[in-house]
């Protein structure tokens, strides 16, 4: 850029000063353009109203032992299952080392009775079956994803099929014995 403005009589010092001025101006302009890119990118992030809905409170009192409910959280289904003692026992009998994604059941629940999972298959995002009575629950008594045949056990862990990981456990806290806040 500086070459074209150089004239025979210009001294080296002046040239270097101008060279610096051009680069500095270009740099400051580039910083401004980059700063303007941020609001544009950030506008696509979740908006305030979307974030405000990102936690929900669920009343657990109507759920009987052995029943499941599905609630919507961040646009996805969350499976809440009140497990029977048999199911808990089955989940805890498995050795963690035998699993595709090793994780003991104790780490996946806060209270053994209540299993709370994001109901999205970790393979390609389908919703596994097994919430309603009569639906297939797979070979391990938990959930079965019809898309590509992934089987989950009574702790929501992947046991068979293409899915690489266990069903996600969302963040949740028990506000009292019968209310849980997810998110």
């Amino acid at each position, binding site marked *: 850029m500086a070459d074209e403005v150089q004239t025979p009589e210009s001294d080296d010092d002046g040239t270097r000063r*101008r060279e610096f*001025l051009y680069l500095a101006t270009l740099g400051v302009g580039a910083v401004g353009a980059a700063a303007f890119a941020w609001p544009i990118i950030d506008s696509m992030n979740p908006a305030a109203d979307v974030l405000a809905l990102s936690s929900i409170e669920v009343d657990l009192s109507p759920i009987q032992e052995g029943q499941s409910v599905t609630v919507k959280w961040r646009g996805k289904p969350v499976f809440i299952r009140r497990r029977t003692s048999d199911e808990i026992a089955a989940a805890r009998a498995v050795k963690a080392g035998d699993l595709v994604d090793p994780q003991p059941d104790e780490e996946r629940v806060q209270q053994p009775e209540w299993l709370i999972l994001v109901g999205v298959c970790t393979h390609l995002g389908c919703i596994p079956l097994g919430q309603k009575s009569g639906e297939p629950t797979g070979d391990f008594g938990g959930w079965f994803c019809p898309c590509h045949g992934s089987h989950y056990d009574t702790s929501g862990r992947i046991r068979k099929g293409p899915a690489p990981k266990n069903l996600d456990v969302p963040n949740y806290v028990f506000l009292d014995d019968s209310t849980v806040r997810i998110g």
Partner: protein
Amino acid sequence: MRMKVLVIAAAFLAGISSAQASGEKIELPQIDWSWKGPFSGFDKAQLQRGLQVYTEVCATCHSLGLVAYRDLADLGYGEEEIKAYAGNYEVQDGPDDEGEMYTRPAIPSDRFVAPFPNENAARASNNGAYPPDLSLMVKARKDGTNYLYAMMIGYADEAPEDIQLMEGMNYHKYFAGHQIAMPQPLSDGVVEYTDGTEATLDQQAKDVTAFLAWAAEPELEERKSLGIKVLLFLFVLFVMAVAVKKAVWRDIKH
């Protein structure tokens, strides 16, 4: 030539801004609002008092449908306070498992609950007049802040003799046509401020105007503070660009 153009352009812009008024010219009282300057923002204590006036007086008839309870964090309220405030209102939700709609207490993510379920219900309760939503009132009127303030203080006990008030209407100094369906909403001591401020008519009118100015432009403070930075940046860049231009052109005779 340049000066001439600037003068004409300035006159033109001035012409546009004064062009909207029509009919009788009503002079609104001009208040020196705290958030009007380029560096200034809202007074949180005043916004909280304004919310109290809105809640206890305006909300009986006027909705504020574009504002959510969670937005009250801007006024300096904490999560629990907002939850408690929202919990005072019932919203319809549903359907439940039996297919019935039900009501539940509002939560922070809900928008302000309207006093009437729909416009017809609002008209039916207000002699046929529709109390408009207040979310954008400050932006939806010319000189909106002073207008709102004037609406609060402009009632007179007796209409001038040349004005024939219609049934159920009230005389108002500043309202277009001087007849307004809304009865005087505020007078001295209508609310009792929790912060001990004396609740004169003037004070309440200013506070609720401030609150509604915030409701219309919740981005105002962020906008101005970012604006100062942007203008400073552009000023620096301008000085540099002028220096570059001079350096580039210094040997060209033109």
